[in-house]
């Protein structure tokens, strides 16, 4: 966390609960930096989150109104708050299990309705807080506490899912692309629509140690090397995408 952003943090909350090497700190930093550059007042912000490590990014750290909800239901809570008080700038920050597995129905319906909110999915491809169980985003073959011989099922492509549901601004970036990530958050925050960003954030504790990453740094390095742009993805074609993660904007949204 950069010192100049400390003013956005709740006084007396001095440390984050995240493990060493967790990507969520970078994401937290980039959300606040995007807000800082847009000069968004914290008084107008409402941060909503569900259950899991990522849900602790805004709550209690951000010095704004925060609503830490039930597992999976953050978008439904956010919908009620936004619809009743449209003056609130609503940002949902939660994890992949929370937003896309238990909460998947709320995600697609909020996208379909085009409710004005920004949903940031901190995607670590695992259930981190509960001990590293397989998620709907875990790659095929990856080891987890409940897939000790490798995950059998295809993971969601969250951007395609939200696009299919009608999301107007849909993007994916990794915490290893902090500048692009911040710019995408800025774009999303200025749109009066449902905006979604899938943010790849490594979990060395639960995912890395089970999947042969020697260190958090090694995990970050692999993630960085796996990320390719939309253009590169198109050049490689479907067969060339093995082991790659396509990042960029998939739907460009509208003001």
């Amino acid at each position, binding site marked *: 966390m950069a010192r100049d952003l400390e003013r956005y943090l709740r006084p007396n909350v001095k440390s984050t609960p995240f493990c060493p090497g967790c990507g969520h700190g970078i994401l937290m930093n980039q959300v606040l930096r995007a807000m800082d550059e847009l000069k968004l007042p914290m008084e107008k912000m409402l941060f909503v989150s569900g259950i899991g490590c990522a849900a602790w990014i805004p709550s209690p750290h951000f010095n704004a109104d925060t609503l*830490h909800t*039930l597992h999976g*239901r953050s978008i439904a809570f956010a*919908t009620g708050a936004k619809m*009743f008080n449209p003056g609130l700038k609503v940002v949902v920050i939660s994890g992949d299990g929370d937003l896309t597995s238990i909460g998947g129905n709320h995600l697609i*319906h909020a996208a379909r309705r085009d409710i004005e909110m920004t949903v940031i999915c901190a995607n670590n491809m695992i259930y981190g807080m509960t001990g590293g169980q397989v998620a709907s985003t875990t790659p095929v073959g990856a080891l987890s506490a409940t897939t000790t011989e490798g995950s059998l099922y295809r993971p969601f492509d969250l951007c395609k899912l939200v696009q299919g549901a009608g999301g107007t601004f849909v993007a994916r970036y990794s915490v290893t692309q902090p500048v692009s990530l911040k710019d995408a958050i800025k774009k999303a925050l200025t749109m009066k629509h449902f905006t979604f960003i899938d943010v790849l954030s490594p979990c060395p504790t639960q995912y890395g140690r089970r999947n042969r990453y020697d260190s958090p740094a090694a995990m970050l390095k692999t993630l960085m090397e796996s990320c390719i742009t939309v253009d590169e993805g198109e050049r490689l074609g479907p067969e060339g995408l093995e082991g790659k993660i396509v990042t960029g904007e998939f739907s460009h949204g509208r003001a």
Partner: protein
Amino acid sequence: MALREIDSLLPPGSYYFSGNEAATEGALAAGCRYYAGYPITPSSEIMERIAVRLKEVSGVFMQMEDEIASICSVIGAAWAGAKAMTATSGPGFSLMQEAIGYGAFTETPLVIVDVQRAGPGTGQATRVGSGDHMQAKWGSHGDYQVIELSPWSVQEMYDLTIDAFNLAEQYRVPVFVMGEEAVGHLRERMDVKPRLSIFDRVKKKGAPPFGTPEDDGVPPMPSFGEGEKLLVTGSTHDEFGIRKTDDPVAHEKLVSRINKKILNRREQIIRTEAYHLEDATCVVVAYGFTARSALYAVNKLREEGGRAGLVRLKTIWPFPDTVFQELGNKVGKIFVPEMNMGQVAGEIMKYAECDVLSYVQTNGEIIDPHTIIEKLRGLL
């Protein structure tokens, strides 16, 4: 006290409403300006009417993707400042239970109208039942309190829905109006008075929103967007909302207060009605639609000289325990007809010293007054 008198939203006078329509109008009169719901028989008429009526009062209506989303968005709207409600029936009420616990623990005022149908499971969707009272009290995990009201008429679908909003705001607690299909779909005359009292949320800038100096207090409740930088969480929290997930003192303090704030105010919350109790030897205890049959039966028996009485429960939770401690010492027998397997009779047995006889009927039909007359004749 933040009770204040306002003009009725509907022009005063008589109306020929269904119970579901009456509940809708009661909600609007009390200040409900956010409704989220999902279609379910036999409560859907509430959602259909309020979808239209909220537009006329600049309120917000959302038909959500399921009942879970409905109740969660109601809680979100409540924290954004709304008096908010949803309506449902058994299966939907089941889906809402986790969020009801969240609402109780975060001390969120909200109202649910449950138009009960014959359960369990999908049961008989169009038939009457009254089997959700234990679920209303115990449906979510952990220890918490709610308030349950039991209307017996179209008039009370209106009146008790107003009361439900006032109680929810006053005590910062989920309040349930537990109608039954029979009253939801019944049409009868009801009156709208020119004035009504409504309770507005207590606000106090900078005050802790989740704690009070008293161990049974109700804290003031700010809304999002007021600059309070609220921390609302369903995890155990201190008086300012900071998570305290491994602090035994914080947990005990919070759980104890959200229970005590209701239980210590039972006298103010609980309402019952008594008929012919003076010299009664056998007293019928009934609530909801069954109380109509019970009153008819008791009146008939009185005409014959039978010393029968009736206690009608308008409040089911918190349970009127002292009413039954006293009644149990005064009368020989308590007879409890219910459209479930004896959910309230079991509670009465905990407190009444006398014989408590449960009569259960779960066939999807209302209890015939003549059945009650026949049973009472055997007891008098």
